[in-house]
């Protein structure tokens, strides 16, 4: 239903703005051109470089898969899999934290001012550099840190809990903060666009809060949720701050591998690793899409069952 409403809106706005069509088209062409130049070209170059043969600092223009063979050694595979696992877990945590928060922000707060303040507060930490934001965890999680001091003084432990810092746990924790807004914002926008009347109608018809969430809000928020997952997971794949500062040289993630390869001036290798990551991201996005389409169909089916 919402799709039809949106279409109608689009049609109306299109009619109203007819005189400005050429401007819109110009903007579209400009954005597309920038996208091709800034995003598509480097990615294509990545794939091209990854199959070239390295010759010193330059390339020999013959095709080879040597770079892939060099990169895909046992420990690198481990690093790729670990990165994908950490990113998946943290993204899921972000969703579990961010979804209720976004709903509360969009529908729970009535005052526009309060809403604006909270949105600004979400952004404020990002004025600090990522390293400065992350290193703070050290004085909280360290052997002589806040938490350990608390645990020791309460008598819960005799010696400091050392796995709080320089561990996978610390890296997970360090990743949650920086990527929280990128999960919240798209969902917040999606949920804000849901007509309050629909939610009211659902409650009037006797649905519980959870039923309304599952059958009304969630299906309509799907575009925002998908965007949230992508906006959160993709940049996180390239994060080297949390693993470097909080991993203590135990939690190697893929971003460090890029640093390593570029440092050793193995550009074809770095390109090959990048290409693998791009393919992994696209495959993940396709899988998410497939799951969502599948869920959507099931939901539609359930709605039909409910209404009959």
């Amino acid at each position: 239903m919402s799709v039809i409403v949106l279409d109608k809106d689009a049609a109306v706005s299109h009619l109203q703005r007819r005189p400005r069509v050429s401007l819109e088209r110009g903007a579209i062409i400009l954005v597309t051109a920038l996208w091709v130049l800034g995003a598509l070209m480097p990615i294509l170059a990545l794939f091209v470089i990854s199959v070239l043969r390295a010759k010193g600092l330059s390339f020999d223009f013959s095709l080879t898969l040597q770079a892939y063979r060099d990169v895909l050694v046992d420990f690198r595979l481990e690093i790729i899999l670990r990165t994908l696992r950490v990113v998946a877990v943290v993204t899921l945590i972000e969703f579990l934290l961010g979804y209720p928060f976004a709903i509360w922000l969009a529908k729970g707060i009535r005052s526009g001012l309060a809403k604006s303040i909270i949105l600004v507060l979400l952004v404020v930490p990002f004025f600090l550099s990522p390293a400065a934001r992350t290193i703070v965890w050290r004085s909280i999680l360290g052997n002589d840190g806040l938490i350990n001091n608390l645990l020791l003084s309460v008598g819960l432990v005799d010696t400091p809990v050392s796995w709080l810092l320089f561990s996978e746990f610390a890296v997970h924790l360090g990743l949650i903060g920086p990527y929280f807004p990128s999960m919240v914002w798209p969902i917040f926008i999606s949920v804000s666009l849901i007509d309050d009347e629909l939610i009211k109608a659902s409650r009037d018809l006797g649905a519980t809060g959870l039923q309304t969430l599952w059958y009304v809000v969630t299906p309509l928020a799907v575009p925002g949720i998908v965007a949230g997952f992508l906006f959160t997971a993709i940049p996180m794949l390239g994060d080297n701050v949390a693993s470097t500062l909080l991993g203590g040289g135990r939690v190697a993630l893929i971003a460090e591998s890029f640093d390593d390869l570029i440092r050793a001036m193995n550009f074809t290798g770095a390109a090959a690793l990048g290409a693998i990551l791009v393919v992994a991201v696209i495959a993940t996005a396709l899988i998410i899409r497939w799951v969502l389409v599948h869920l959507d169909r099931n939901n539609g089916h359930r709605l039909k069952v409910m209404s009959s």
Partner: protein
Amino acid sequence: MTERQDRSKISRRTVLKRAGAATAALALPYIVPEGIGRAKAQSSPGTIRMMGGPTVALEDWAQFEKDTGLKMEFVPFNVDDVGALYNEILINGAGERFDLINTLAGVQKPLVQQGQVAQLDTSKLQNYAGIADSVKRSPVLYTGDDKDWCVPLYYNADSFGYFPEKLGLPRPPEALTWDLLLNSEETLGKAALDGDMIALMIGGMYLKSRGLADIADPGNMTADEVALATDWLIERKKAGQFRTLWKTYDEQVANFVNGEVLVQRCWEPAVKAVQAQGLDVEYATCSDFHVNWMHSTFIPVQAAERNNLDEIYRALDWFLGGSYAAELAVLRGYTGSRMDLGLEHARSEGWPDEKIEAIEANIVKVETKFSNPNFWIGGAPDDLAAHDREMARFRNA
């Protein structure tokens, strides 16, 4: 088949072909090594732009500006990370943007071969002739061609920092061994190590000094040798020896201050900084070996073509003078290439006794340490790729 279908088919094929050509064309700027449209060498008269290790920089360049009449624009770079440094110079063309480049001595040798370094006109450097030949012709500095390519800035014999009281250990100059850092039950999980390939070189030095492996030069290992060193370090890592691997100077300081470690491979300035915060930490003197290094500075070949070359020489000569040597000895504990001038400067400027004593102690300290067994690290191993690969393996273990 209608004409329309036919046409669409042809155009699709044409489109595919064009897309292929376009892809190659799109990728071209990224695979042409020289980098299209890189900014041409620009001089900035009156200002010296220098890139170098963070410990090269003084807290205040006022003395430099007063003595030379030039402004200093210093950009810190983790020069220990040799691969990153080469990348910055060879790929990102740092020479276009800097008048002076500081590196770990030894790193400049391949750069000299690749024509990145301007040969020094030592007649323009008043303080150069007085530098000891043992320094000027040291293995990390001398390229073997009877030419001078870079000036030695300062040097030191490195070890690790430790808390003597907490560990119940003597203070320097009484000597310790590297076991405390690398192979000790007492410091298990309370030691930290470099997060770059210097860690592997130290592993190699340890194995060589104990006769545990046949390694010719731990500062420049072959792929097989570096694999041996890495295997041993991985063993120690799995035993839980290391609390963390640091990447920056700030982390070294933080690890001591936050009580994460009892012993840490670190730079001497980190120990100085921690002492300044009132903590009882010392920089070890070792009986088994020291890690000798030197910082050197060169004029990039691009800068030699600029019209501020005389200013560059004036700045370079200042680094070889007394005020820099004295300042650095007190601030970092490093030994400048002209400590004689440093001592003279401190005395003539009427520095307080304690600072003059610190400079004198510094001269003695380095003489003592250099007479112990030691290994030079020249920054760049020949098989950089193997070192980087093994470092990634060590970190992942």
